[in-house]
């Protein structure tokens, strides 16, 4: 039986924002109800448009921020209920993160070796020698060479910098790695190298990934489970095959049909989404997607749909509930 590493239930994160000086603070619902389970060796992909709350979720999972409400367990320990510092520290080590920008996320004045061993210095009591050894092992694991230890980040290409960031994230031997757009800034040929590295590391170490991305062709390739978010809320989630072969939520369908495909044979029917992502400060009433949805009716403006199981996926849509939605032609 695979070990359950993350259990998230109804996670919410609200931010207080001011739209102007002297204006009262309003509540911005950056994340409004995310639930999922993540098991050892598995990948959950989180997809959705800019501002839908993907990075917010990442900050909750890495315990950088606390959820406004909801329950989060890491390694079967409830994060909110643990007060003991040592356990919190251990949980923090269990979940590590790799950021999107391989240029911004590394300190330019530090040598690669030091960047990678910094978490060891902060979190462990290993001797300098032991640390050095561990860093060299880790560098080899991610495909960096020994002599890179003494170099600075600017001497590396984007793909190599992302390898450095991955090495740093893995040095504390986490069980879960949150990858926030890990390959978006990379070129196609380098992107493939980094994705392969992630796949190999997962197979070797049994890591669980939360893979945040807006690139659906990458997500389709790498993920086991997929969670599609819109304006802070998951709208569809399920196994990779179910979501990609039989997308049910109108937003998932639109997202898939909007993704260009590297295929010159036959043009697909594209679902046109009108309008833009509304503001999360003042989300539309009822279903948040209703102003852009081709299936929306009166009910959709009045009632908020909830996640329910249809087939293999959970979907939150009134039209799906009423079976008013046709299938997206498989691509």
């Amino acid at each position: 039986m695979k070990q359950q590493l993350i259990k998230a239930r109804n996670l919410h994160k609200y931010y207080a924002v001011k739209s102007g000086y002297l204006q009262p603070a309003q509540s911005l619902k950056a994340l409004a109800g995310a639930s999922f389970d993540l098991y050892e060796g598995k990948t959950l992909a989180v997809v959705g448009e800019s501002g839908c709350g993907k990075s917010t979720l990442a900050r909750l999972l890495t315990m950088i921020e606390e959820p406004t409400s909801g329950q989060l367990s890491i390694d079967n320990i409830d994060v909110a209920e643990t007060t003991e510092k040592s356990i919190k520290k251990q949980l923090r080590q269990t979940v590590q993160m790799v950021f999107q920008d391989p240029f911004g996320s590394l300190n330019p004045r530090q040598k690669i070796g030091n960047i990678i061993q910094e978490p060891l210095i902060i979190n462990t009591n290993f001797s300098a020698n032991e640390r050095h050894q561990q860093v060299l092992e880790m560098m080899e694991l991610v495909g960096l060479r020994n002599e890179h230890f003494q170099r600075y980040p600017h001497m590396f290409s984007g793909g190599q910098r992302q390898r450095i960031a991955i090495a740093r994230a893995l040095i504390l031997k986490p069980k879960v790695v949150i990858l926030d757009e890990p390959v978006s800034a990379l070129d196609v040929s380098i992107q493939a190298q980094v994705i392969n590295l992630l796949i190999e590391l997962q197979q070797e170490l049994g890591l669980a990934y939360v893979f945040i991305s807006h690139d659906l062709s990458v997500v389709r390739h790498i993920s086991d489970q997929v969670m599609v978010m819109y304006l802070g809320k998951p709208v569809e989630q399920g196994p990779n095959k179910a979501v990609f072969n039989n997308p049910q939520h109108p937003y998932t369908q639109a997202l898939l049909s909007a993704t260009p495909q590297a295929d010159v044979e036959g043009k697909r029917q594209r679902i046109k989404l009108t309008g833009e992502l509304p503001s999360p400060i003042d989300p539309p009433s009822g279903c948040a997607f209703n102003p852009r949805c081709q299936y929306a009716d009166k009910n959709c403006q009045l009632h908020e749909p909830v996640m329910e199981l249809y087939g293999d996926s959970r979907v939150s849509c009134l039209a799906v509930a009423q079976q008013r939605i046709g299938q997206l032609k498989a691509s």
Partner: protein
Amino acid sequence: MALLEIANLTVEFATATGSLRAVDGINLSVDEGEILAIVGESGSGKSVAMLALMGLLPWTAKVSADSMLFDGQDLLSMDDRQRRKIIGKDISMIFQEPMTSLNPCFTVGYQITEVLCQHFGGSRRSYNNRAIELLHQVGIPAAETRLNAYPHQLSGGMCQRVMIAMMIACQPKLLIADEPTTALDVTIQAQILELLIELQQSHGMALILITHDMAVVAETAEHVVVLYAGQQVEQRSVKELFKSPQHPYSEALLNALPERAQEKLLNAIPGVVPGQMDRPKGCLFNPRCSYAQEMCRQQPPELRDGILCHYPLAMPNPSMRKDPDLDVRTQ
């Protein structure tokens, strides 16, 4: 006769570490109303080539070409004043970063009417209706009220539309779009690409689309130029390129796509694009090429039938080409 005809375009930058050849002998030909894609990895010279055409490079750049004809006129021999008459009116360019190319200090309406004044004369006010019409054309809702909006009040997708509105204001014969959708969400990307194609069709405008996304090429362009390290390695119809690429780099680029993976690991291209300092002898792609032979390591190939390779892939006996010593995976 082609609308734009460029032969052997070369751009060299004088840098602190010596001369840098950013564009190395590119040939382009664009017909009226045609869509040509230029694809290549970061740093391959896509933007620099187009900026050279527009005459927008800094003085450190040395531009040369055998010929550069637009609409029968020779851009090379033309003086700056004549050139400026064409650039901006008959040829327009959408730059890579939309946020930075709109002036934050002026309203959208001001910026559009200003462009019209510059090219057609008259007062800005007289163009108000035309500006509204243009914003309407690019799909901005409630265009009348947006005239007074500043760029920061609009989303990224909206800014990109405003840019396009400005660029088509003079009904150019050729529009160059430099990564017009890279920073945008997929659903907005789909809208913008559709808009560009619509304009190309309704106005008979030619379009050069710069991108690093093979899927975007597949879905929009008729012809494609593939760049590698400043050189043009292949020029074909898009259909042909996707069915049977002839340059090893084009093939490798297509094979690296997640969609084309046969198994869990992707077909990554080993190594990285050479930089200014580590340009290999012979073919620039040879250290990464799975077909490279001794000849490739010694002699730079010459462009033949639009392909820059000693051993193009359409050769009768492909098994002859593969170098058994070079294992792509383990490198």
